[in-house]
């Protein structure tokens, strides 16, 4: 259970928890709870409490509310409230001492092992490993057995068994740091080893240690209380929460109060400490947080998307996307990932969507599939597909389209297949997801599909696991999956980007052939216009969530009109032209939660004028009319000179 902490990452920076807890109600209440109990424990000597150890046999087991005894008395006539307060004080003190000792020694061992490496590291870490091989409470028991019962001995035992966790975590942190330049600089500068350890390394691992202390303190209090409960820790008459529980156990049935209350206080104390520890961890590893974070798909709820009148329906168009907008709402800010995007596609037609990373291409693909992850949402527009209004379709019907009528080919074949299932199983489940066919038939179909994507010996490969296949093979498997149900539309999200150049060409050729054979329409997302020149008829160029230029691929490559399209072409290397001077685009795409007014590209555009930054700029027809450009200077900047 302690090892759980080792799985956590350490913090990049340290700030006081109170600053980071803003908005985290649970962590704040934990902080308040702990602060209250600590204040009570500190104030114990000056509070008007009865003597915690004064026994009075004539006043045993007085009920709660008796005169002078708010919570009554225990089996020896001692004031229960007073013993609880002093017990809290003892438990806190022992827990704090134990956690400090293990932190101190564990950090020292971790620092030395991580810094010196070599034999010192080996010896120290092997010893630590042996200690970790024990169920650690048992090791504590063995130590107490040898030292003899007593609160201090129990504390020492708990401290010792916790040293390994600190040592291992600190060593890990040091190994991470030792790669950084400042440590080398200090070494080369002739700094003495001790100095490097304490001046350079220690301050950097301190945050890790503090986090570990806060997450381990609760455990250590529980454990020392446990030893006292067993009679191996605090000895009578010391007021200690654990031993109070242990010694009043026999009165559980007659006077539950004396046996139950100490446990309640321990619970409150540990809950408070753990809430604070969790709060710290949430801040440091936000993915684990309880917020609605990227998780299952959040399809636009049917009816929430207003019907758009942007474009009248054209007959014969298989897919019509009109004024589509997808936004992410993160921390009170709105990220416009896809903004007012329209295009349409005829059956069997192929279109490329081109743009840099972060231009909204992938979100567009996910919007079409209905897989925009939370906290993103399609907020406006219309997607008409084969006569159905996708955004108004209930999720169950939408799911039946996915993989059947609209297929998806992902960007990274290395991660898109489930690593623990064979490719055959994954193909079969695809087949059976939309058509109830027997397992044997599914397997036969899976082998056929593998054959169709030109995989050698498909009846053998069908039982292979993803890691046994090369990247190109995996992409072929994913293409086979996309073809499983003869879809009318395939959305391919940079399907060749993660592959070697030689494999890229093969995959492109394969997709070309298969799309033709199946008559499937294709939306091919890429950052490289050159890649799609032979595959696609038309292209959309996207920038910051919007289409900036659209037209035939041929026209866009030979006569790009939008400055961004030109910049994209100028920075793309071309096969067979090693002498081509590549011109990277200056600057970064704008953050999608803070888009510039007017033309989003203006800040990076060499043709920009003052008026480019004012007002909305529309997508306008250009030239022969089959081309559209979102640039108010499209007619002024002249033809392209590569």
């Amino acid at each position, binding site marked *: 259970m302690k090892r759980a902490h080792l799985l956590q990452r350490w913090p990049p920076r340290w700030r006081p928890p109170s600053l980071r807890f803003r908005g985290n109600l649970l962590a704040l209440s934990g902080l308040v709870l702990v602060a209250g109990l600590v204040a009570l424990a500190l104030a114990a000597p000056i509070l008007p409490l009865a003597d915690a150890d004064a026994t009075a046999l004539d006043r045993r087991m007085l009920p709660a509310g008796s005169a002078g005894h708010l919570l009554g008395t225990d089996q020896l006539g001692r004031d229960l409230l007073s013993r609880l307060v002093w017990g809290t004080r003892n438990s806190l003190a022992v827990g704090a001492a134990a956690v400090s000792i293990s932190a101190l020694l564990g950090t020292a061992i971790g620092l030395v092992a991580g810094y010196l490496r070599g034999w010192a590291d080996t010896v120290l870490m092997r010893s630590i*490993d042996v200690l970790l091989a024990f169920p650690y409470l048992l090791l504590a028991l063995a130590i107490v057995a040898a030292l003899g*019962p007593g609160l201090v001995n129990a504390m020492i035992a708990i401290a010792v068994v916790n040293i390994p966790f600190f040592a291992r975590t600190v060593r890990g942190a040091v190994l991470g740091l030792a790669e950084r330049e400042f440590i080398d600089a200090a070494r080369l500068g002739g700094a003495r080893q001790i100095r490097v350890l304490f001046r350079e390394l220690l301050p950097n691992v301190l945050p890790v240690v503090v986090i570990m202390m806060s997450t381990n303190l609760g455990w250590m209090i529980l454990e020392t209380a446990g030893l006292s409960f*067993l009679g191996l820790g605090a000895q009578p008459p010391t007021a200690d929460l654990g031993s109070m529980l242990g010694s009043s156990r026999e009165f559980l049935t007659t006077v539950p109060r004396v046996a139950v209350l100490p446990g309640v206080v321990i619970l409150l104390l*540990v809950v408070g400490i753990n809430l604070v520890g969790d709060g710290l961890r949430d801040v440091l590893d936000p993915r684990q947080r309880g917020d609605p974070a990227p998780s299952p798909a959040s399809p636009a709820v049917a009816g929430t998307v207003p019907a758009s009148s942007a474009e009248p329906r054209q007959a014969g168009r298989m897919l019509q996307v009109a004024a589509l907008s997808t936004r992410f709402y993160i921390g009170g800010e709105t990220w416009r990932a896809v903004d007012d995007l329209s295009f349409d596609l005829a059956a069997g037609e192929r279109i490329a969507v081109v743009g840099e990373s972060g231009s909204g291409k992938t979100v567009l693909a996910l919007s079409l599939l209905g897989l925009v992850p939370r906290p993103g949402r399609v907020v406006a527009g219309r997607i008409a597909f084969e006569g159905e209004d996708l955004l108004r379709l209930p999720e169950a019907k939408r799911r039946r389209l996915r993989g059947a009528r609209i297929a998806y080919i992902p960007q990274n074949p290395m991660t898109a297949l489930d690593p623990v299932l064979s490719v055959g199983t994954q193909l079969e489940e695809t087949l059976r*997801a939309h058509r109830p066919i027997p397992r044997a038939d599914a397997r036969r179909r899976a082998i056929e599909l593998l054959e169709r994507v030109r995989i050698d010996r498909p009846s053998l490969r069908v039982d292979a696991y993803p890691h046994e296949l090369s990247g190109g093979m995996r992409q072929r498997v994913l293409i086979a999956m996309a073809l499983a149900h003869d879809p009318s539309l395939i959305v391919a999200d940079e399907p060749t980007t993660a592959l070697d150049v030689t494999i890229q060409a093969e995959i492109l050729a394969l997709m070309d052939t298969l799309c033709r054979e199946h008559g499937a329409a294709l939306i091919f997302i890429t950052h490289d216009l050159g890649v799609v020149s032979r595959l696609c008829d038309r292209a959309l160029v996207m920038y910051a969530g919007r289409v900036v230029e659209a037209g035939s691929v041929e026209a866009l490559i030979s006569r790009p009109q939008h400055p961004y399209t030109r910049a994209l072409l100028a920075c793309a290397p071309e096969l067979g032209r090693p002498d081509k001077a590549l011109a990277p685009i200056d600057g970064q795409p704008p953050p999608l939660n803070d888009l510039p007014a007017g033309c989003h590209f203006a800040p990076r555009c060499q043709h920009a004028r003052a008026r480019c930054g004012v007002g909305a700029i529309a997508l306008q027809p250009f030239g022969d009319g089959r081309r559209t450009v979102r640039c108010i200077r499209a007619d002024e900047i002249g033809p392209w000179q590569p």
Partner: protein
Amino acid sequence: MGAYILRRLLQLVPVLFGISLVVFLNMALLPGDPALAILGPYATPESLASLRRELGLDQPLWQRFFIWLGNVLEGDLGRSISLQRPVIDEIAERLGPTLILAVTALALSLTLGLAAGLIAAAHQGQWQDRLLTLVVLLGISTPQFWLGLLLILVFAVWLGWLPVSGMFAVYGGGDLLDLLHHLVLPALSLAVVVAGVIARLTRGMMIEELSQDYVRMARAKGLPERAVLYRHAFLNTLCRMVPVIGLQTGFLLGGAVYIETVFQWPGMGRMLVDAISTRDLLLVQGGVLVLACAYVVVNLLADVLQHWLDPRIRLQ
């Protein structure tokens, strides 16, 4: 697979050696004189000296270690002073009840923990997640021994549904039903904390898995959400959880000490507590050694299981 198990078994040797060294040194180096403990404070110096010789305490430490280790390998863990019988016999009697308790508690905590983690992760950020996170936090912050007392108070004393303590009824008990009847409360008290830890880890790993590309792909294939969750994300989570669950058994074995004391369960944990209070050091030594070895073996089994479950590791 066979080669892997063989390699792991060989790796076990130095670990077991290290464990016995620690157990031995803990008793040999820390203050306390076994001879004095056996004979009591009124023993004459002569009888103390002769007993030390008899116990081999006058020999150098390393010799004593190897003599002890040799005896241990032959199954001789020494003689318990308080019980006046061989340690190994006592352990043989006590191991069974502890295993019954620990295995039941493990099964319970796996069921509760995996289910809670799965539900919380599937509803990340929604009320189910918040509620479960809070319950789990309470669970792992609860002193186990106190929880045991509470359960006794409510279910045994007030409601009278279940027995207060022991493993079998004194009169007329002894069958499986009687055992199960006695097992419910201790197993539940022992399971709660570990269930909480497993729930937390499962939730964290599952959330990580749900953000992986293969999950998006599974959804893009049109799989029903249930298949995405169970067949893909949860199966992967389970593969990663197996060794972690192995580590949790260490906590179960430790927690058994409290629970066996609270419920008067005749297992190893209570034996250890009694042995410590009677200063029966050889019994403590033997008990800790056996439980530590059991823990190592469980972790080995967990690794083998993961090896068998996860094709990526299987191949290496």
